[in-house]
């Protein structure tokens, strides 16, 4: 039940991110979360969007290299220790976190969400669920 993230290759020079957001805006894509990883000469943008397949198509047609990656989305209650609880479960299950990034609650406002990149999404999801954490479905993620 992992959700799908779109990862896009960008050259590290002025205007490349803007080119991508222009393509998405023209195609009416709604972004729900975004993170940017960069090195000296290139970057990878990771986004959670409302329509994954449409987004991948318009990006490819516009000449971007992109890929779809399964990630785990969790809801984090806005209380002290909210994230710590999530990480404790992953740590206890010996699950390595490659990267993660946060997203605000969007239309629902109150909660925060984290997008987690792990080796095995299924294993992480069942551990989190067993620990009482709310795990997002693709539908939730598309409708944030």
């Amino acid at each position, binding site marked *: 039940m992992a959700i799908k*993230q779109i*990862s896009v*290759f*960008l*050259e590290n020079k002025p205007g*490349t991110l803007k080119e991508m957001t222009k393509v998405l805006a023209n195609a009416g894509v709604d972004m729900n979360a975004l993170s940017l*990883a*960069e*090195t000296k*000469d*290139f970057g*990878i943008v*990771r986004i959670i969007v409302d329509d994954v397949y449409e987004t991948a198509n318009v990006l490819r047609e516009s*000449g*971007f*290299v*992109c*890929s779809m*990656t399964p990630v785990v989305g969790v809801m984090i209650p806005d209380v002290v220790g909210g994230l710590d609880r999530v990480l404790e479960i992953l740590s206890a299950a010996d699950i390595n976190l*490659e*990267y993660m990034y946060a997203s605000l609650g969007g239309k629902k406002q109150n909660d925060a969400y984290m997008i987690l*990149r792990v080796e095995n999404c299924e294993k992480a999801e069942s551990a989190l669920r067993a620990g009482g954490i709310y795990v997002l479905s693709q539908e939730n993620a598309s409708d944030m």
Partner: protein
Amino acid sequence: MERYYQADLECASLEDMRALQNEKFLSQFRRVMENVPYYREKVEKSGVSLDDIQSIDDIGKLPFLSKDDLRESYPYGLLAKPLSECVRIHSTSGTTGKRVMAFYTQKDIDLWYECTARALTAAGATNEDVVQVSYGYGLFTGGAGLDGGSHKLGCLTVPTSSGNTDRQIMFLRDLNATIICCTPSYAAYLGERMKELGLTPDQIPLKAGIFGAEAWSEEMRRDIESTMGIKAYDIYGLTELSGPGVAFECSEQTGMHINEDHFYPEIIDPDTGEVLPEGSEGELVFTSLDKEAFPLIRYRTKDICILSREKCSCGRTLIKMKKPKGRSDDMLIIRGVNVFPSQIETVLMNHGYAANYQIIVDRVNNTDTLDVRVEMTPEMFTDNVGDIAAKQAELVNGLKSMLGLKAKVSLVAPKSITRSEGKAVRVIDKRKI
């Protein structure tokens, strides 16, 4: 069953070939001495007289001609026939900044087209074939050369010239073209475009391609062959000597047979000018034995390669030249190390990258820098910065072990490197020396 265009010459015994070369050389030499004052003065200045040259074995006594001579005598100084007997000129693309102009009589044109007809025959062409010539037509020799050879064989010739890639593919499919002729970089681009259009090799009617006019690697050959489902043949030539068809590849794909009944080859030490024995690597030098209008004797090509008379499975006895690493003009000297763009291409293709790349050389704080720009491909891309950086590092290591030199690798956006329709601009040298 191997077919030849002129079996008696292509499969002649070494003895017969030497006799033919000797006879042609002596009359060519006398004729040039008589009709080209620039050449006569050059020979006299070197202290050689007509009597010193009794056979082709004495050729080593004669001075070399180089691109500098062509420039000094531009445009008519090396002409050996009155202009009234010349019917055509061709000119180089000037990729190295020095434009060359060459003249042809009708006989020169006919013999040149026979050379390209030999190349097409070796690639399997008969009058049943449809040959699409996607080399540029005009001053460049590529279009005219293959067009002429294709006519000699009676192939249906499709003169698309270069450019307008989608129209090229339309003609190719509508007319069921079986053989395509163009530069290897354009062939790679055509293949890339066909792939984008969703064409698989069995939907592409081509069976063979003849690609030349720039240096390309063995890996690029395999890539073009598998994308289009064809056999790719190399062809070699210089405008100064006629154009493509000075040498051509047969199905063995282990080097190109030189049409040595027309072009007599030697390998020399590029520094000392000394003639080297067969099998040595050195600079290729040619003497045109038949050219009437623009005959060059001992012309230095700047191409570094090896000659070999090893028996070839195709049955031709014409001497073979190994694929040149590149013109010594293309050779870069970076931090004192000799680098050929084709070596960089080999590394890229071995690591799964496409043949679209650019080499940028610069000098920062008195040190040469080498930046290899490569396009990111869907196959190489992941969402993990570390994985991509690791692939980049692999490439840097691969380049280091091939070149003995540390290069920077820049991954750039797809299609951001300009595609060429003729000769690709692979190297940008920003150094001001």
